[in-house]
């Protein structure tokens, strides 16, 4: 295989890994503060992407044509809307179920995910069909020897890295981050320190859901197409990534996200069967990894939770 093609695959793997990481980090944050699995997370990503698309179409129809402005509006509206949706889910579905078994939260968010998905399908105009997503980033490419680096991919990758680093700084260097980590370690003692537990949960859900919105928009920009079912697979992959990395650890989510993307890429490129089997291959390896390391690659004992 020539170097140019190989580097394309690597770039593609990195892009996928970044999107999976953004989803996986959400799972890890929610599990960190509340010990719950929120299964509607992937569908929140879908709603985020469609919110972004609707914002684009709406602004275009009133005559806004500046691409940077449109991109900014798409991102800001998607992020704010999903942050609000995340807080509503936390406030009215997740927190009221605190005294119930964790399984009930899993079930109720699974059902909510279906509701969100079906709402996009039924209420978005022709929502059952895939929708073209506008290319809002410059698509020029820089030629580096045999490898064409597309500018939009480079920007998305850089943006993703910035977001993850930013999140890490938020958690490690700010008072809010300290409060989130305290709640993750010991909810009651955190409350005894004067931390408003409910507020911290809502903020954490807002952050996780905003990351899903970014992942959804990124997915649209990357594939130039979105559909109502996109969040389903992304949710399952993000969840798997969080689990194989070690649920509760941000580094685990990053590791899991990129590992899954690497597996898919290997499955598509390096193995002697059709690339359609890439997910089968990737999930098979994940199952094997989980049998080998049931608590994830980065074990909670040694890693710092959230």
């Amino acid at each position, binding site marked *: 295989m020539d170097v140019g093609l190989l580097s394309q695959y690597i770039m593609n793997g990195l892009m996928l890994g970044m999107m999976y990481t953004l989803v996986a980090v959400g799972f890890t944050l929610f599990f960190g503060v509340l010990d719950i699995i929120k299964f509607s997370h992937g569908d929140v990503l879908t709603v985020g992407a469609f919110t972004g698309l609707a914002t684009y179409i709406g602004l275009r129809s009133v005559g806004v044509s500046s691409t940077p402005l449109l991109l900014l509006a798409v991102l800001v509206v998607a992020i704010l809307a999903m942050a609000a949706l995340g807080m509503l889910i936390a406030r009215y579905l997740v927190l009221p179920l605190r005294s119930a078994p964790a399984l009930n939260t899993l079930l109720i968010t699974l059902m909510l995910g279906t509701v969100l998905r079906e709402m996009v399908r039924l209420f978005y105009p022709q929502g059952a069909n895939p929708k073209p997503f506008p290319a809002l980033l410059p698509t020029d490419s820089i030629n580096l020897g045999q490898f064409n680096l597309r500018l939009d991919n480079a920007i998305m990758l850089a943006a993703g890295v910035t977001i993850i680093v930013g999140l890490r700084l938020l958690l490690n260097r700010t008072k809010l981050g300290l409060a989130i980590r305290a709640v993750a370690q010991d909810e009651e003692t955190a409350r005894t*320190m*004067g931390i408003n537990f409910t507020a911290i949960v809502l903020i954490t859900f807002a952050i996780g859901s905003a990351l899903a919105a970014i992942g959804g928009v990124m997915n649209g920009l990357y594939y130039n197409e979105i559909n109502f079912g996109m969040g389903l697979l992304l949710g399952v992959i993000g969840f798997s990534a969080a689990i194989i990395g070690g649920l509760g650890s941000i580094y685990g989510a990053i590791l899991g996200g990129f590992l899954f993307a690497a597996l898919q890429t290997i499955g598509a490129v390096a193995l002697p069967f059709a690339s359609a089997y890439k997910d089968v291959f990737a999930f098979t390896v994940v199952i094997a990894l989980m049998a080998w390391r049931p608590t994830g690659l980065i074990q909670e004992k040694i890693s710092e939770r959230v």
Partner: protein
Amino acid sequence: MTGRLEIEGVYTAYDKADVLEGISLKVEPGRITCLLGSNGSGKTTLIRSILGLTPPRAGHIVFDGQDITALPTHKVIAAGVACIPEGRKVFPKLTVEENLRLGAYQEPSNAVTEERMAEIFRLFPRLAERRIQLAGTMSGGEQAMVSIGRGLMRAPKLLLIDEPSLGLSPLFVKENFNIIRKINERGISIFLVEQNVHQTLAISDYGYVLSKGRVVMEGTPSEIGKTKEVQQAYFG
């Protein structure tokens, strides 16, 4: 002087079974008030009720004239209460410094937080040496220092201390009680919940004895020390 806590007829239940059955007591400003009782007598439940972690099903808790009975925990803390919880409860995967910072979570000024931290480090020089060590990797005695320091970071009017001697060596218990007295000398009211009768009575101004969810006697340390009821509360 402020830091007065009044508890009036408090009933607290877990799953419908009452653990506290009509507790009434007072913590006077600037004093050390103790509550003695054996395991399972309801001491920790009373602390949890005051903090709003397990809200009472009946009765009133009034702090400096404000009814804090139904308040969420962070608002009880905002009223001027801090707690050194049973078993120390340090955040194991946070550093000593982060643990202390959390104690001053509601303090908006960074300068004040830093100043208080410097004060805690003067009180416990050992913590200064270990400020970036994870609290979970420290010895029990050191964790006790972190927990006490964290409670002081709030600069509370009232400090609730739940079994400070639990699981510590006798030497450190003595040291701990000295520190509690020093804290009180700064004008902070203290509500000390303990099993360790002699050392507790030695530093207290007034005491209550709890048995099976009820206050069975109250009085000055010398009155409590003399009575048979204390013995009964423990062994009867």
